[in-house]
């Protein structure tokens, strides 16, 4: 079973949610899922943009009580 790791980047400005995801992606295994928690509106756009450009998989993205949950899978 692939693991799902939570990357809690709520209420942080630097390095920020996407940079946290990139750092965590390096430590993940192919097939693992990562769920980024972000209070930065920009994450809903910039994380999918990077995921698509690199070639990982976007699983879902939704906002709940002011927090974006962006779930991705490491493909390579």
């Amino acid at each position, binding site marked *: 079973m692939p693991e799902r790791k939570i990357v809690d980047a709520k*209420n942080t400005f*630097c390095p920020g949610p996407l940079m946290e995801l990139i750092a965590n992606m390096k*430590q993940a295994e192919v097939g693992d899922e990562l769920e980024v928690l972000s209070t930065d509106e920009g994450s809903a756009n910039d994380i999918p943009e990077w995921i698509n450009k*690199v070639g990982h998989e976007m699983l879902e993205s939704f906002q709940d009580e002011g927090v974006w949950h962006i779930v991705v899978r490491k493909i390579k």
Partner: protein
Amino acid sequence: MKILIVGGGMGGTILANNLARRLRNELKTGKASITMLSASDKHMYQPGLLYVAVGKMNPSELYRDQASLLEPSIEFKVDPVVEFDLDNNSVKSQSGATYSYDVIVIATGSRTHAEGTPGLAENAEMFYTEADAVKMYRRLEEFEGGKVVVAVGVPHKCPMAPLEITFMLIDYFKQRGIWDDVHLHYTYPIGRTHSLEPVAKWATPEFDRMGVTYETLFNMKEVTTDTVISEEGSEEKFDLLVTVPAHKGMQVIEDAGMGAGGFIPTDRQRLNMEGRDNVFVIGDTTNLPISKAGSTAHFEAEALAENIASMVTIGTATRDYDGKVFCFIEAGEGKATYAMFNYQNPPDPKEPTAGIHWFKTAYNKMYWASARGLL
């Protein structure tokens, strides 16, 4: 209460001195003790390496004897920890000794991990150790022009370093009179030129004004003798590659299984290791999603010193760390600015000024007062 501090960098040193002052009476009466274990008898001012890399500081200016920075009531040993036994409140050190504790603070910092990117260590210049910074300066002195690429790994120590080294390289090339023969190309891992949006909004037009080209969403995958290839599929040829490499926590943390990449899962406010009430973590060693910077370690150390002192005197912690970070930003042309923020308030950097540059230059000397807990 036996307090053991592992690591004699900025965080550990400020914490130890702050605690020693708060617990002066308890240390005298034996109610408390503070022991620091460090890997070196020397303390290095790490931000100075950036200046060494461009010939603005000499390595000899970066060091003090660690013992000279510590309050006399602190027991200091050069004896790095090689094994943590958190279940039994003890550590083993390189000398073979076992140190027990009631409270432990882990402040072992981070290290570059250039070897994680194939070809990077062999083909790039960097400035995170004295040897690397000196090597980079020697390489710059030989450089007569061509394409210089700045490439950035994740995570890295000092979030301002990519911008600062870029602006300082411009100054360096101008002072040597070869700027017209240089094409400087800046790359950055996310979709703007800096992780802090207000800083990116300032830096990007500065790059345009100075003729620096840039590419965002660029994460190094592999480096050859003349090309850096990104995870995103682009390639950049270079004559000189300058990198801010990815970092990891210390090997002993990874080996103990205390945190992926050597970064220990840490509570944001109380700074305890997750699941442990008597294990605290500060500085680069945490896995907190905040800047790996000296100022982070400094402000965490102050908050934690207050809490540990309260644990000794009234039996409980009293303060939360609020995520405070303060970073100078050298902007080139003799100017600098700064970014200050915490968990709740974003940064609002001001226009760079000569005054802030000179304050930063002064801080390069005042650091030692800061490490002693006086500033």
